[in-house]
């Protein structure tokens, strides 16, 4: 129980860099970031304006790293950041921000607001101002291995289930396999069809793959709460496993922040580049498609649309692959308005779905997704993130909208051509 304002301030002083200084100097209070944020557009409450989430950090930056700010602090004109102020900001920094990054995409002076929120969380968390639900998820991940407390035996049970279902043996700790497959707790518990799908796709593509007993969990609560030291501990499990098993590529599953955690934050957390490649399953599938290794038959005939997970598309750079894959198996693929780079968040990412205090707000914010869907009235919604899936399902239920939600990998797998006996080339 060592959280303190002092710790928070010290960490924030480390976090502040030239981009942040430039962003604070550039903000002209135009409010366009609010117009891009679903927590403002669906509530109309200006306190949810994204740049406003950073107010204490701005003052701290000025007081610590600018001549005038130091002068103002010394003269008593600029009040120091207080613990109660950070407490008041908890709702703004955690409950009403999914780190979706839409604000960063629209700011006319170029401010990368989500970059700042992510760094602000470092200070907020060790000052003791992260939400209880997110702290608990982090604790379970550190102590037990996964935020939902899923341990290896649960994974093994799923492996057995998949083997029975598909007749394909799921490899574990196979050294030298080309791909190391990560799983999110959500998939292990809620969407076990993911592992089946991966098994069948890998078989058709003729690729070697493996799970890792010490590093199977893809999610990273450290990223959600925003504490790099803890995120490092968590991601190191994957890195250590991948290096030990000498795999070529680590596959991040249908999850959003897990991809961010390993693909983009990972090397920076551990302080060195990876020796292996990292890809999201959607990237892998699209690569197989481009190489002719993914053979499908038949098309879905109902009206399908795709929800781009924020951490995959806007924050991850994977935007076209999912569309290529959709077009492979969907006869009537329609795009949501503002799909792709500017897609609206489902409202559950960034730790919000783990945060009970944010439930009501999250459901209110879901109206944005609802109106996006209503503009297109699809028969089914496809996505590539397990948390997006559950968040959307909860939202749909709350607003009594009937709309099945499915994952992209399982959709692709459902259309795989029957595996020819003996191998991918047949015969």
């Amino acid at each position: 129980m060592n959280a303190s304002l002092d710790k928070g301030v010290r960490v924030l002083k480390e976090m502040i860099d030239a981009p942040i200084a430039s962003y604070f100097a550039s903000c002209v209070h135009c409010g366009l970031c609010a117009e891009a944020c679903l927590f403002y557009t669906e509530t109309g409450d200006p306190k949810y304006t994204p740049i406003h989430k950073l107010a204490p950090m701005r003052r701290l930056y000025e007081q610590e790293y600018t001549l005038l700010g130091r002068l103002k602090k010394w003269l008593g004109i600029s009040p120091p950041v207080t613990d109660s102020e950070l407490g008041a900001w908890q709702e703004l920094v955690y409950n009403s921000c999914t780190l979706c990054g839409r604000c960063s995409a629209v700011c006319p002076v170029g401010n990368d607001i989500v970059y700042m929120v992510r760094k602000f969380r470092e200070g907020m968390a060790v000052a003791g101002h992260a939400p209880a639900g997110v702290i608990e998820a982090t604790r379970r991940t550190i102590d037990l291995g996964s935020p939902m407390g899923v341990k290896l035996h649960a994974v093994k049970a799923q492996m057995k289930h998949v083997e029975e279902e598909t007749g394909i043996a799921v490899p574990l700790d196979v050294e030298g396999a080309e791909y190391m497959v990560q799983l999110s707790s959500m998939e292990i518990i809620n969407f076990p069809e993911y592992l089946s799908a991966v098994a069948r796709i890998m078989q058709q593509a003729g690729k070697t793959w493996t799970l890792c007993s010490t590093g199977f969990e893809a999610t990273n609560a450290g990223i959600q709460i925003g504490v790099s030291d803890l995120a490092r501990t968590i991601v190191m499990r994957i890195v250590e496993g991948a290096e030990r098993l000498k795999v070529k590529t680590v596959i991040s599953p249908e999850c959003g922040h897990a991809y961010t955690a390993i693909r983009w934050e990972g090397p920076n957390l551990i302080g060195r580049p990876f020796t292996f490649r990292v890809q999201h399953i959607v990237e892998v599938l699209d690569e197989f498609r481009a190489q002719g290794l993914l053979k499908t038959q038949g098309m879905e005939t109902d009206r399908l649309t795709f929800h781009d997970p924020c951490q995959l598309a806007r924050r991850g750079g994977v935007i076209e692959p999912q569309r290529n894959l959709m077009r492979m198996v969907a006869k009537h693929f329609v795009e949501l308005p503002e799909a792709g780079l500017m897609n609206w968040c489902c409202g559950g990412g960034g730790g919000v779905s783990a945060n009970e205090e944010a439930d009501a707000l999250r459901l209110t914010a879901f109206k944005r997704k609802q109106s996006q869907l209503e503009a297109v009235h699809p028969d089914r919604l496809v996505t590539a993130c397990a948390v997006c899936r559950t968040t959307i399902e909860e939202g749909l239920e709350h607003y009594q909208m009937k709309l099945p939600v499915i994952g992209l990998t399982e959709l692709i797998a459902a259309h795989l051509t029957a595996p020819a006996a003996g191998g991918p080339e047949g015969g």
Partner: protein
Amino acid sequence: MREKSGSLMGHLARQGVSRRAFLRYCASLATLLALPPGSGRALAAALATAARPSVIWLPFQECTGCTESITRSHSPTLEGLIFDAISLDYSETLMAAAGHQAEEALHNAMRAGGYLLIVDGAVPLGRDGAYSCIAGRSNLDLLKEAAAGAGAIVAMGSCAAFGGLPHARPNPTGAVSISEVVKDKPIVNIPGCPPIPVVMTGVLAHYLTFGTLPELDKLGRPRVFYGETIHDRCYRRPFYDQGKFAKSFDDEGARNGWCLFELGCKGPVTHNACATAKWNNGTSWPVESGHGCLGCSEPDFWDGGGFYKALSMPADPLKVAGKAAVAGAAVGVAVSFVNRVKKNAAKSSHETATLADLEKSS
């Protein structure tokens, strides 16, 4: 110099000037002075019967250009008539006498009192006024003595009105204007370097007719001649409004008669009658001849930055700016060092966060 007796009309008749010509002159002078209709007759009547008042002209720190300008219109034009309407009892340039005789004329005129005192040139105050002396006495002393008995004072030319060229930076002689020395007499400033002749004669005519000085602006200049800027009466104004500027002397724009703003014309900030009354009896004036207005009827026009610097250009080259940039960079670098130390200290005192750090103890 001249006899104090005799009427103007008689004098004119002897010169061969008809009454009709005289009346025409008075009418045009009344128009120039913006007097109400019918004033031409009043002017004529007053001038015709006026006793010729005594006028003393004292030259101080001047170049004699003002005297030159006035006398340019002496003969055969009508301005010269005014000189017949006054008794110019002392004028170093024009009087025939010199030495003691001239001094005696001056003292006789001053003894009578109530004269009109015309002064051109500035008054140097430096070294107790030693920089400009006449007959061993400083201009300052002469001015104070002459001003004491004067009815009114005409500060002729920019030097007398505002200090003029002697007053320009660095003003080594401590030159000042007449109104900085004399505080207790009515003074009319007629600035210009030199002033337009008809401006001078118009003011005198007003004084002769009405016994008072015409309405003055806050710089003591007759509003009727100095009430508007050159810019507001300039015939090239349409080109200014359109943005058609000559870029250099004798370029195409200059030859087309375009606005001379970019060549330093101070017309927009200069009050004078050049654009309407013009010079050399309405022949032309600087802008019409292709040169920008110097601003010569405004105070400190010599220090206005340069005759060829447009009003939107800096009056002087920037002196501190370059050093300020370097100083600013130095401050920035200093702060960056302090920042680096602070950040490194924060980094080195980093305690790896554990789960225990996520919650407070109480």
